[in-house]
Structure formats: C-alpha cells, structure tokens
C-alpha cells in the first residue's frame, strides 16, 4: 500500500433531491411540503414579507416580530411561553431585510396544541405596554454590549459607508432610535404586514394527511387575508466617498478589518459564477486568503470573504480579527490576493479542489428534510424551484479558469473597496 497515493475520487454529477409538493390553503396561502424522515418531528416556517425594507422607522420590523409573542388577546407573555415550552416546542423568530418569520420545531404529536396559539400570535397580538418597555430596555442594554465589540463597530461603519443611513441595508441603530418607537407604530406595522395574503408556509418532516389538514383548518381562514407588501418602495444608496475608515481603540490588542463593496445579487446572471470566484478567494478554509494570511503569516485566527445577496443588491465583504500591529499588512495582503485573482489563471488542481468542495457543500446543505427546507426557502425568495440546485451544480462543474479571471477583473476591484478598521 502506498500511503502517499490518494484513493480514487468519484465526482458527483447530480444530487438526488427530496420531493417538494406545493398546495394552497383555502385562503390561498402557498404551502411547500417536504415529507421525509424517520422521526416523528416537524419543522414549520411561516414567512411574511415584513422585513426591514418595509419599516417606516428603524427597529420597527424587528420589534413587531419580537413583541408578537409577548401577549395576545386573553393570554400573557408568560402564558404563551408556558404553552409552547410545556409541549417542548421551540419557536424561533427572525427578521431579514425582506422577510420576517417564525420557525417552529415540534414533535408531531404536540402540534394540535401549538398551531392554534401560533394563529393567535399572527392575528391577535396585543402589544402590551409593560412588555414593550421591558423589551426596549433589554434591547438598549444589548446595544450597549455590542458597541463594546470592535467587529460590531466595524460592521456598522462598513454598511453605513456603503449604503448610507437612509437605506435599509446601511441603516445602523443609534440610541435615539429606541426613543422614537411606540406600540402604536408596532400595531400599525403588524396589521399591515402580518396577514394571510403576505405569507407562505414551508413544512418539513415526517408528515401525514392529518397534519396538512390541520394546517388548513387553523391557518386557512379567509378572515385574515390582507394586502401583499407593496413592491414600489425604493431607496437609493448614498455611499460615502471616503473609502478608508479607521476608528481608534487604544486598548485593543486586535483590530477588526472589513474590506469590500456593494455588488450584484442573485438576479444577475454572473452571480452563481461569482460565488465560485468568492470561494476560491476567501470562501472556504482552503481559500487564498486563509492560506496566505492565516496559514502562512499567522496574522489571524480566521479570514473569510463572503458574498451576500439581498432583493435590491449584494455585498462582497472580507472580514478578520487580526493582530493590531499587522492590520495594514493584512490589507496589503488582501490587495495582493486580489491582484493574483485578476492577473493569473487559477491552476487546474486548485480549481478542481474548489469544484469538488462546493459540490460536497451543496450536498450537505440539502441533506435531509430539515436542511433542505432552509435551502428551499431561499429558492422561493428568488422565484426558483428545485431544478436550480442541479443547475447551480452544473455551473460549478463547468466554470473555467478564464471565466474566473474575467469575473475577478469585473468584480474584485481593490480601488473601489471600502477598507474599514477598528482597533
């Protein structure tokens, strides 16, 4: 046996995906169903187009989402929590730029106790004043905590420089914002955006007809129909002309470094290929940035670049916590790696590594109903279906070294990037 010789690798040409069935409840709410798994468990996502894009004031979307479980007609926050938690269900909520949602994890046998309460949260939230004040205080405290962290400050400076304070992607929270919201505004936002006409549902797990029927009987009523979120709200970015930004923290032993710029989103035909470029550059453990700045220089515990897509734009960003004395050296090395991406052709071995790595990552991301439903949710947001997964796999497999260089020239432009340091 020759231990220097790697075993033969099989490449994966297509990924077998779980079936996704789509139905509509009586009131028209689309429901995406992934019926698979051995355990008697269910995960249900309720997605409302009620994200930060639609809030007339900072914090509203987030606070509404949080406050919905802090009281409904006839039930206090404690009573609501008691019911969910008695049945071992975990209710998570989240707010992004476009959407706001609830995700419930439950043993199937307890669903009949849980679903009606969720419906009350969606339609009868009461926004009690005392709970609002407690939440406001706790959020202010959290904000105070975050402001003590360099990476948080760097992220604020980075986003607001790129988009400007008036744009939802660049708007950062100030203490004054906490004083400007009240429960009246929360109730208005709630009644405008949380309704059956502005919602879709994803359900994953070991399912039977009774579960699907119960979805319809609990959430299918026409009475909570309402308007879809308006699609004519537009904001224009007001980027800061100053690309280099530094905040001094004299006691820090490290600096937070963020480098990047606004870029294309998933609606752009280059996006999928650019995601491969990003992977080569800084998107995985074996990336150029990691190999150079962590594994060769030892400047940081980790440096990554990431490509984020939102409905109205995208962001390419590189971030790291580095020794204070090497923050300029790190920026220089990032510049060098960008030059290499733009000027040199990637060799076949590295490109194959990235292709195989991305294939494996894609397989892992859709393995099992729980993970696949998260991926599928992302597809719905861009009007795609499951075919996209294998199309993306095809893009990964067919991208060439020349294309990677071309896209690097087009999208990795150090001179246009913001360079933000805190430390």
């Amino acid at each position: 046996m020759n231990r220097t010789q790697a075993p033969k690798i099989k490449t994966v040409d297509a990924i077998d995906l779980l079936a996704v069935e789509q139905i509509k409840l009586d009131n028209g709410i689309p429901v995406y169903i992934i019926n698979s798994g051995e355990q008697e468990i269910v995960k249900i996502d309720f997605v409302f187009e009620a994200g930060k894009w639609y809030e007339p004031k900072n914090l509203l979307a987030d606070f509404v989402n949080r406050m919905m479980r802090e009281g409904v007609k006839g039930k206090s926050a404690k009573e609501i929590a008691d019911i969910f938690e008695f049945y071992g269900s975990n209710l998570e909520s989240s707010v992004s730029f476009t959407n706001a949602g609830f995700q419930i994890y439950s043993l199937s046998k307890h669903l009949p106790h849980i679903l009606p309460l969720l419906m009350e949260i969606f339609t009868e939230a009461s926004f009690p004043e005392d709970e609002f004040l407690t939440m406001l205080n706790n959020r202010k405290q959290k904000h105070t905590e975050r402001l003590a962290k360099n990476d948080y400050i760097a992220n604020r400076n980075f986003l607001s420089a790129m988009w400007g304070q008036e744009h939802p992607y660049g708007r950062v929270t100030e203490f004054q914002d906490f004083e400007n919201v009240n429960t009246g505004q929360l109730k208005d936002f709630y009644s405008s955006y949380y309704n059956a006409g502005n919602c879709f549902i994803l359900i994953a797990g070991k399912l039977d007809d009774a579960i699907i029927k119960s979805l319809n009987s609990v959430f299918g009523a026409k009475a909570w129909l309402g308007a879809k979120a308006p699609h004519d709200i537009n904001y224009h970015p007001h980027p800061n002309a100053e690309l280099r930004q530094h905040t001094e923290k004299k006691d820090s032993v490290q600096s937070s470094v963020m480098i990047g710029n606004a870029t294309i989103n998933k609606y752009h035909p280059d996006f999928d290929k650019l995601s491969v470029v990003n992977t080569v550059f800084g998107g995985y453990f074996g990336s150029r940035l990691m190999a150079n700045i962590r594994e060769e220089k030892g400047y940081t515990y980790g440096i990554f670049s990431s490509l984020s897509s939102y409905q109205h734009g995208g962001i390419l960003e590189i971030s790291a916590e580095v020794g204070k004395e090497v923050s300029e050296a790190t920026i220089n090395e990032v510049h060098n790696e960008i030059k290499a991406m733009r000027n040199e052709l990637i060799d076949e071995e590295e490109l194959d590594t990235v292709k195989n790595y991305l294939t494996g990552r894609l397989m892992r991301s859709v393995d099992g109903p729980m993970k696949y439903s998260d991926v599928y949710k992302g597809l719905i947001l861009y009007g795609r279906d499951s075919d996209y997964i294998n199309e993306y796999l095809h893009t990964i497999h067919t991208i060439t070294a020349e294309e990677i260089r071309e896209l690097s020239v087009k999208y990795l432009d150090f001179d246009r990037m913001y360079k933000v340091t805190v430390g």
Partner: protein
Amino acid sequence: MIHFEELVLPNGLKILVHEDPSTPLAAVNILYKVGARDEDSSRTGFAHLFEHFMFEGSVNIPDFDTELQIAGGDNNAFTSNDVTNYYDILPATNLETAFWLESDRMLSLDFNIDSLETQKKVVCEEFKEHYINQPYGDVWHKLSALAYKVHPYQWPTIGLELSHVENAKMEDVRDFFYKYYRPRNAVMVVAGGVKTKEVEKLALKWFGDIPSGELIPHDLPKEPEQTEERVLVLHEDVPLNAIYKAYKMCDRRHDDYQATDFIRDMLSTGDSSRLYHELVKDKKIFSSVAAYLSETIDDGIFIIEGKLNPDVSMDDADAAIINCITKLSDDVSEDELQKVKNKTEAFLTFSDTNILNRAMNLAYYDMLGNAADVNTEIDKYMAVTTTQIKRVAKNIFNKNRCSTVKYFKK
C-alpha cells in the same frame, strides 16, 4: 434509536459503525481521549495547540484539508477540557479518502517546525480574539481559577496565558503525539451511507498497521470539597455590570446529572424559565440571564450569569439570583417537570436527525463508558422525579460551594 456495530482492530482501535442508507454522506469522527485536563500546569493550552498542529501535514500527506476538499469533504475539530475530537463529512462514495487521511495522521506527523511557529501565532490570535479583546472575555480564566484549586479544570482549554502557547517546543509536540494519539487511546465512528463490511475492510487496510500504544489513564487529583464562599471583584472596561456564579456540581457519569440538567432547563431555557421570567421580566433586575453546565466529565460547575440593569446594585442582583434558585429546593411542580421532559424529548429527537451529531454522540458515550448508553440517555431523563430535583437543587445551591465573579464597569 441509533443502531451501531462495534469493531475492534488487533491494534486496539475501536470503530463504531452506524449505517443510515437515507443519506449520501458519510461522517467520520475520531475522538482522542486527551484534553486540557491532561496538561501540565506550566504548559497549558497545549492540547488545543496540538489540535491545530494535526492539520499541518502528516508523515505521507502534506495537506490534510486540501485532500479532503478534493473529495468534496469538510472537516473541523475541537478541544475540550476532556477530549479532542476530529470529524470529517464527505460524500459516502469517497469514504476511503477520510480513512487515508485520518490513518496517516494517526500513524505519524510531519513535525515541521515552521508550521508549529505559524500555528502558535494563529492560536495566540485566537486567544486574543476570544479571551482578551472581548468584554468579559477573561471570565473563564477567572471563574475556573476560582472554582478549582487542585483539579486541572482550573485553566481553560485555550491556556492560562499567551506565553504558554508561545513557549511550546517541538519535542513536547512529538512526545504528546506518541503518548496520546495512538489507536488504544482513540475511538472512531463511521456513520451515514456506509456499509459495515466495507468499513471493516477499509479500517484494516488503513489503520491496521498503526502501532497500538496504550490507553492513557487520567490520574487526576480530585478537587477537594469546597467549604467557603469565594468572590472575585473586578473593575474592568466592560459595557454593563455583570455577575457570574459557579456552583459545584456532580460529574458526568453521576446519577444526578440528568436532574441537574433539568434544573438548568427550569432556570433558563426559554421565556417561561424561572430566571428569565422572575428576574428579567418580573423584577427587571437583569437585561439578560443564562444558566449552563460546564459539561465536563469530572466534577463540574453549574454557572449562572446575568447582565445588570442600570440602577440595580450588585448585592441586590446577587441576592435575587440566590432567592430564585434556592426556591427550587422546595417548590417544583409535576407540570414543570413534565415541561422539561417534553423539551428534552424534542431536543434529543431533533439532534438525532443529523448524522454528524449521531457520530459525535456515539464516540462521546463510548468514552464515557458505553456507546449504547446514547440510546438510554432519554430514559434516565424520563426517570427523574420532583423529589430528586429538589434534593439535587438543595445540594448544589449552597453558598459555601459557590464561586462568584462580579464585574463593575470602570
């Protein structure tokens, strides 16, 4: 229910195989029975630094990560006080790649001095990122040193100080490897879309000729019973005043462990939990509270932390925690117990859906004594009674077994 088969190679390497034909992926998990508790007090942080070094090239393969990525895989590792755990997850069709890689780094390493120097720097940056350049980042150092006077849990896995990492020598790395990274001191789990027969064949082929080494006993001093309240007051540049309390609790194999875990749930899991409801919502003493266990194999600590609201005094905050937790000694309803049982049933069922979790759990329970216990853990939780909860709470929440760190912002 996680079904599995057990193989033991002639060199003593134990391999547990869990077949799950529903996934096209395979998880390979190797747990080495060595952690920060096995370190010398003058060379702390070594087990963790060594974990980094395990990715720096083995005797025949210069680059572990790249080879695994070529096979479509990904990997990571962690070091705790008790163990060092490595895992790979990759398409099951490329399972042999993981065997090739893992066996080579169990056989021997490259012991490259430049790599060691770079990893020392990387670990020092990790140390700074998580333990120095963070508000409250030093709390684990302070709390461990306060709670443990004899047992090596008195230092965190990252190490006591940067200089311990900086001073690590190649000679130490070599000795550590040949002592702890031997087949008899490891347990391997292969899970997912694999066949036991195939795993057996691959195991013999790749791991069969590695010298067996020995199972290294952990002859650790038992932490003496704590008999006095310990308090450390810090004035630091932190954003909010904060309190951390660590109470001594039982070891991982003790019959009271599950009841202790339930107490943690009752105190701080979810919005209905006692600490959150009483001290955040009702009395508004804290803006956030949490309780957790150190999850160590030897005698552990039960930690409660809170960030104080403005205008609340540290003494009042401390007293409020004590008042809230001591009520568990005489007032626990059947309903509340049923709540945490339901939560645990759901939690264990959900965590079972992930093959990597299953693989890691099998390895961990094997290290604790018996891999099959992974399937009976739930029964231990379901057997807990309110009487036991009250007794255990009374035993734990004793001020003479408590260590408290108080942060005052400068």
